C-alpha cells in the first residue's frame, strides 16, 4: 500500500517537474499565444484636396469576401469523428457568383481548391459585403480593407493617378507622393477571450497607426472640370484624336487646371485604355508652331534687334538654303510693322527677325523660357521636350525653330513660357502641390516656386501688347479668343506633326492657342492644344476652347473685367431684352445655330500660320 502511494506521488511529482520546470517556457508561450491577439491597425492613406479643400481622392472601407474551402469538404473532428461538409461548393458558388460578378464555374473551382483561404472578391462596396454576410453562407467571411475612391470619377484622373489594390501608388500624384501619402500601420496586442472580447485585466500593448499626409493641390476643381468639358467638346466637334488644356495662375505658377482628353476613370482602371492614363500636358510633346513666335519676338525685342513699331518689308515667301518658307496665304510684298507681323502670324517676317537675332541668342532665350528641360514639377513621366544643341542646328534650323517647327515642347512648357511674358518677364516654376495637411489638421504651405527674370519688364509689356493685337486687331488670327469684358492676349498655332514611322512630317496637324488675360495685369494663362483636328487651324479649333475656359476661369477666380462697365440701368434693360429673346428662342423652332456641332463664330474667317516646308 505504501509502495503504491509512493509510486503515485512519484508520478505526480515527476509530472509537476515536467510541466513546471522542463516544459515551463514552451507551455507559457503556448498560453500567451492562445489568449494573445494581434490586430493590425491600417494607417489611413492621405486624402487629396483641391485648392479650395474639396476632396478629390479619399479612402473608404470596403468589404473583401473570402472563403474557407474546408467547409465544403468532408473531414474529421479532432477526436476522429467524421464531419460532413457544411455546404456544397456548387450551391455557394451559385448564390455568390452573381453578387460578386464572377463566373459560377470559376468561383466553384476556387471554392473546391485544396486551401484554407481563397479570395472570393476584393474591395466590394461595404453594403454589398454586408448583404453577402447576411446570407450566412457557410465558410464565407468578410475582411475590411481600405479602398481608394475618386469621388468625381474621371475628373483630373491623369493628374491624380491611381493606386494598386494594396494601396500603393502606381500612377500620377499617387505615385509621385506615395512616400507621404501612405500611412504607417499600427498594431494592437491584447489578451482576448475566445469570443473576441478583450480580457479586461489582460495585457494590452498599442502601437498606434500613423495616418498618411493629406495633399492640397493647386488644382481648382471647377476650372479643371470646365477645361475637361471644353477639351472633350473640341474632340467631338473637330473630330480630333485628343486635346489638352493647361491653366496657370500668373505670379505663383499654380497649375489651376491640367486637362487631357480622352481621359479615364481611376475608379475603373482595368476597364480603361492605358494610353489615356498619361497626363499628356506634361508627358507628350508637340511642335508648337506659331505660338512659338511670341518667344522669338521677346528675344528679339530684349536684344534690341527689333521693336513692335519697326517697319518691315515682308514678302509671302523666303528662301533659306534649299528650302522655301511661305506665309499662310499668298500676298504681295507688304510694308508692315513687326507688331503687324505678329498680328498676322507671318512666317516670313518672323524668320527675318530671327535671322537678325542669330541662332545662339534664339537658342539661349528658348532655353531660358524653359524649352529643352523639365520644369521641375516632378510629375511622373514629365518630358523635357526637344531642342537640339545649337551646335547641331542645320542651316534651316534657325528659320524652322523661329516659327515653332523642329522643336518639341510640352503644353505645360508653352504655358510656362507665356506665363513668364505675362509676369513682367519673371519665370515662376509651375507647381501642382499647394501644401500638405498633417495630423494636426493644419495646412503647411509648400515652398514658393523659385523665380528667375528672363526678359525685362519693358520687353514683356511690348510683347503683351503685340499679342493683344492678335486677338483684338483687325487682321488678328485669334479673334475667336475674345472674352467679353476682358482684354485678352494670345497667339494661335498650327503645326504639322512629325511622322511617327518615317523622317519628315505626316499629313496631320496640331492646333494650339496660348494666351492670357487681362492684358494690363495678367492673372491667368490658358494653353490649349488639339491633336489632329479638322479643320486644322488654331484660330478656328483651339481659340474657341481657350475662350471658353478663360471666360469661365476669370469669372470663377473673380478677376474684375477690364473694359468699361455698363450702368445699372443699361444693364437691367439689356438683361430684360436678353431674357425676352431667350424666351422667344425657347418657344420657337430649333435652328441650325442650336446644333451643338455648329461651327463657332468666325470659323470660316479664321487663319493661321500655314504649314511650312519641311526642314
Amino acid at each position: 500500500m505504501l509502495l503504491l502511494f509512493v509510486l503515485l506521488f512519484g508520478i505526480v511529482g515527476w509530472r509537476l517537474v515536467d510541466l513546471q520546470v522542463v516544459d515551463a517556457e514552451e507551455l507559457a508561450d503556448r498560453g500567451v499565444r492562445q489568449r494573445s491577439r494581434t490586430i493590425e491597425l491600417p494607417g489611413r492613406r492621405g486624402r487629396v484636396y483641391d485648392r479650395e479643400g474639396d476632396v478629390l481622392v479619399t479612402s473608404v472601407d470596403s468589404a473583401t469576401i473570402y472563403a474557407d474551402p474546408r467547409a465544403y469538404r468532408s473531414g474529421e473532428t479532432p477526436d476522429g469523428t467524421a464531419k460532413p461538409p457544411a455546404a456544397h461548393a456548387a450551391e455557394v458558388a451559385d448564390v455568390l457568383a452573381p453578387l460578386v460578378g464572377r463566373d459560377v464555374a470559376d468561383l466553384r473551382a476556387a471554392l473546391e481548391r485544396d486551401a484554407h483561404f481563397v479570395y472570393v472578391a476584393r474591395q466590394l462596396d461595404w453594403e454589398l459585403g454586408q448583404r453577402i454576410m447576411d446570407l450566412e453562407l457557410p465558410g464565407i467571411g468578410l475582411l475590411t480593407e481600405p479602398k481608394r475612391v475618386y469621388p468625381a470619377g474621371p475628373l483630373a484622373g491623369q493628374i491624380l493617378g491611381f493606386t494598386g489594390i494594396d494601396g500603393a501608388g502606381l500612377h500620377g500624384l499617387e505615385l509621385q507622393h506615395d512616400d507621404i501619402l501612405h500611412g504607417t500601420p499600427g498594431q494592437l496586442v491584447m489578451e482576448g477571450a475566445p469570443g473576441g472580447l478583450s480580457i479586461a485585466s489582460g495585457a494590452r500593448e498599442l502601437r498606434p497607426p500613423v495616418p498618411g499626409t493629406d495633399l492640397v493641390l493647386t488644382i481648382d476643381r471647377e476650372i479643371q472640370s470646365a477645361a475637361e468639358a471644353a477639351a472633350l467638346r473640341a474632340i467631338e466637334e473637330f473630330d480630333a484624336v485628343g486635346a489638352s488644356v493647361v491653366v496657370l495662375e500668373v505670379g505663383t505658377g499654380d497649375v489651376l487646371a491640367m486637362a487631357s482628353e480622352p481621359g479615364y476613370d481611376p475608379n475603373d482602371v482595368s476597364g480603361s485604355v492605358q494610353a489615356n492614363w498619361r497626363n499628356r500636358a506634361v508627358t507628350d510633346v508637340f511642335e508648337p508652331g506659331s505660338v512659338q513666335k511670341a518667344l522669338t519676338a521677346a528675344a528679339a525685342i530684349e536684344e534690341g534687334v527689333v521693336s513692335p513699331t519697326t517697319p518691315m518689308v515682308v514678302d509671302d515667301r523666303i528662301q533659306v538654303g534649299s528650302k522655301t518658307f511661305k506665309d499662310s496665304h499668298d500676298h504681295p510684298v507688304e510694308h508692315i510693322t513687326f507688331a503687324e507681323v505678329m498680328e498676322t502670324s507671318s512666317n516670313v517676317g518672323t524668320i527675318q527677325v530671327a535671322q537678325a537675332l542669330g541662332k545662339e541668342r534664339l537658342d539661349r532665350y528658348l532655353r531660358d523660357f524653359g524649352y529643352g528641360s523639365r520644369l521641375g514639377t516632378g510629375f511622373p513621366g514629365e518630358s523635357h521636350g526637344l531642342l537640339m544643341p545649337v551646335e547641331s542646328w542645320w542651316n534651316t534650323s534657325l528659320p524652322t525653330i523661329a516659327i515653332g517647327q523642329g522643336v518639341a515642347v510640352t503644353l505645360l512648357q508653352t504655358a510656362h513660357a507665356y506665363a513668364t511674358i505675362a509676369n513682367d518677364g519673371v519665370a515662376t516654376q509651375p507647381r501642382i502641390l499647394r501644401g500638405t495637411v498633417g495630423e494636426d489638421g493644419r495646412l503647411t504651405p509648400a515652398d514658393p516656386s523659385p523665380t528667375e527674370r528672363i526678359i525685362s519688364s519693358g520687353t514683356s509689356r511690348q510683347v503683351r501688347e503685340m499679342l493683344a493685337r492678335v486677338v483684338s486687331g483687325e487682321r488678328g488670327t485669334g479673334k475667336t479668343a475674345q472674352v467679353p469684358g476682358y482684354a485678352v492676349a494670345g497667339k494661335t498655332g498650327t503645326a504639322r506633326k512629325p511622322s511617327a514611322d518615317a523622317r519628315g512630317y505626316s499629313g496631320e496637324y496640331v492646333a494650339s492657342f496660348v494666351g492670357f488675360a487681362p492684358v494690363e495685369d495678367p492673372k491667368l494663362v490658358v494653353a490649349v492644344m488639339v491633336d489632329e483636328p479638322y479643320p486644322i487651324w488654331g484660330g478656328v479649333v483651339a481659340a474657341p476652347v481657350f475662350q471658353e475656359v478663360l471666360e469661365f476661369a476669370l469669372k470663377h477666380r473673380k478677376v474684375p473685367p477690364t473694359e468699361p462697365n455698363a450702368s445699372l440701368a443699361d444693364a437691367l434693360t439689356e438683361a430684360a431684352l436678353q431674357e425676352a429673346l431667350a424666351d422667344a428662342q425657347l418657344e420657337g423652332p430649333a435652328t441650325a445655330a442650336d446644333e451643338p456641332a455648329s461651327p463657332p463664330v468666325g470659323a470660316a474667317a479664321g487663319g493661321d500660320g500655314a504649314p511650312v516646308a519641311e526642314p
Partner: protein
Amino acid sequence: MSAVPAPSRRPVARPVERRRAHLRVVAEPRPRHTLRYALLYLVLAGATVFGAVSLNALAAGDAVAAHQLEQRVVTAERDYAMLVAEVARLEDPARIRAAALELGMVPAGSVRFLVVDRTLPADGVTPDLVATGNEATDPLKPVLSVEK
C-alpha cells in the same frame, strides 16, 4: 557517652518552596477562540474572493461596453469616410451640370459687372461685422476653412 555525630542537617531539597519563592501573580489564562478566528478568516477570505470576483465581473462588463463603443467608433468612422466621399461625388461639377441640364436649366449668359451708381443697403457694412475670419466656418472643409 559517645559522641554521636549529629545528624547531617543537610537541607532537604524543597523545590516547591524554592519555586514558591519565585511565584508571582499571573492573570488567568484567556480562553482560546480558535473557532472565531477560523470564522473570521473564512469571512475575510470569502469577502476577498467575492470582491475580486465582483470587480472582475464589473471589469468584464466594462470590457463588453468598451468593445461595443469601439465598434460604434469604427462604424461611425466608416460612415463618416463614406459620407465624405459621397459629398464629394455629389459636388462634382460635371454631375451638377448634367443634373441641371436634365432639369431644363440652361447655362447662364455672360456675367455682368456694373457700376453701382447709388447707395445700397449693404454699403454701411464693415468687414468685421461680416466675419472675423478666425473661426472654421465650413464644417465640411475644416482643413482649409481657417485659412480661407
